[in-house]
């Protein structure tokens, strides 16, 4: 692999553009999607079909005062929103967009992604703690217990994928699934893995919704009970960075799901594999995120934990056992 300065620079700029465009216009997609589901029109004033709305929102947020209330932990309060954004952008470095597009094909890239996801969770904890606000602290505590509960089944299901592919390099996992949808991990015909892998996929998807703190698992910012949770004291771009971090986490979650279960850049019919298929897959998944958010009401915190500890974890463990047995038997 070529390791010139230009290549690094090109990927840096490219990934930052990808991240920025997604962080801005996913908000527009979300609002349009929500509007259509509720049979409204959504943003339509700023530019064609409201496409300039993200710019208008950004301008408005930047023109507001960045308020730092009395009694907050100054440094941590300022660091937390940045910390929400950085891990999400960093994760993109190891995502294989296609056979030839991917900043780094690291060994252990799956582990790296999950480590970075945990840092994103810490940003919520720090933001909530530093605010010195009761709502924010409750929200931060909830967020941590939720992340803890959902990382276990998530990692357990990832182990099934790793067992099948025999690698924890995302690129190799994707290469292993090339050649039509019957090679994808979710429908894999070989060794009869299609029997259990769709359960893995569903568990993984539920967990990634929970990990990104999206509705119906948005206990961390339950407006009706916690004002805005850990974001209560943030104004201006502090709030903006949290929002952008949330959308970037969705993008990373979708990329990870597409790579681990849906064959990465592979075409379902074995023709023309390439980055376009990857893009189609991640945006289909992102649409599902939006669709889910505007379908289900928020759950309660104990039901949320029950779902993880009583259903998802036992199921993912059984799933892991069966997958391992299938590999051993065939």
């Amino acid at each position, binding site marked *: 692999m070529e390791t010139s300065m230009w290549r690094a620079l090109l990927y840096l700029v490219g990934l930052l553009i990808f991240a920025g465009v997604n962080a801005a216009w996913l908000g527009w997609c979300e609002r349009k*999607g929500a*509007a*259509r*589901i*509720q*049979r*409204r*029109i959504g943003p*339509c004033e700023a530019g064609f079909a409201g496409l300039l709305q993200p710019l208008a929102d950004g301008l408005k947020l930047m023109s507001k005062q960045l308020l730092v209330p009395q009694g907050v932990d100054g440094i941590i309060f300022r660091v937390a929103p940045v910390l929400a954004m950085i891990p999400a952008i960093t994760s993109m470095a190891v995502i294989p967009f296609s056979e030839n597009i991917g900043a780094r094909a690291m060994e252990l890239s799956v582990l790296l992604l999950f480590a970075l996801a945990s840092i994103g969770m810490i940003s919520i904890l720090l933001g909530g703690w530093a605010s010195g606000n009761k709502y924010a602290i409750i929200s931060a505590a909830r967020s941590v217990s939720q992340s803890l509960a959902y990382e276990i089944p998530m990692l357990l299901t990832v182990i099934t994928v790793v067992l099948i592919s025999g690698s924890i390099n995302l690129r190799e996992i994707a290469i292993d699934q090339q050649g039509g949808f019957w090679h994808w991990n979710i429908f894999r015909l070989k060794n009869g893995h299609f029997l259990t892998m769709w359960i893995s996929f569903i568990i993984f998807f539920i967990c990634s919704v929970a990990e990104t703190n999206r509705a119906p698992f948005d206990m961390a910012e339950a407006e009706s009970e916690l004002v805005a949770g850990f974001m209560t004291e943030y104004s201006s771009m502090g709030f903006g960075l949290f929002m952008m971090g949330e959308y970037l986490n969705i993008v990373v979650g979708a990329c990870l799901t597409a790579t681990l279960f849906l064959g990465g850049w592979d075409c379902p019919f074995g023709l023309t594999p390439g980055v376009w298929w990857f893009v189609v897959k991640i945006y289909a998944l992102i649409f599902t995120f939006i*669709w*889910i958010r*505007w*379908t*289900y009401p928020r759950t309660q915190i104990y039901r949320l934990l029950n779902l993880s500890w*009583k*259903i998802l974890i036992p199921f993912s463990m059984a799933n892991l056992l069966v997958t391992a047995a299938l590999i051993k038997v065939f």
Partner: protein
Amino acid sequence: MSGYWSDIVTGGKSLVTGLAITAREFFRPVVTEQYPWEVPTMTPLFRGHIELIGSEETGEPNCVVCGMCQRACPSGCISLDGKKNESGKGKALTRYILDFTKCSLCGSCVESCNFNALRFSRDYNLVSFDKDDFIMDLMNRLEEQNRCKR
């Protein structure tokens, strides 16, 4: 343990049903109107403030100044005056003031009118910074409507 599996099955089913409903709504036409650009058509039974009905030929109000509406009004919003016709038969309306700030749109005035002289308007764009704007001269309104007709 007995409820465990049934919970998973029924819960999963209800989740899929919910997704199906929102997916269906996603592709159906929007029901909202973009207000300043699109104006809603009011339903026939919409109750705006009252207005006078003019006769088809002359445009003069049908009102004979019997004063039934004034007496029927529980809030005392209506004040009207008339003068004797030159022919000496009946009265003609000269002034009809509606104090819309007190009106509760009960419709007793419209109900009590036996001469087809009052109705509810379809006017819903009622907004002002000044209370006096809602003390309305319905004679002026009728004249304006006549002018628009011509």
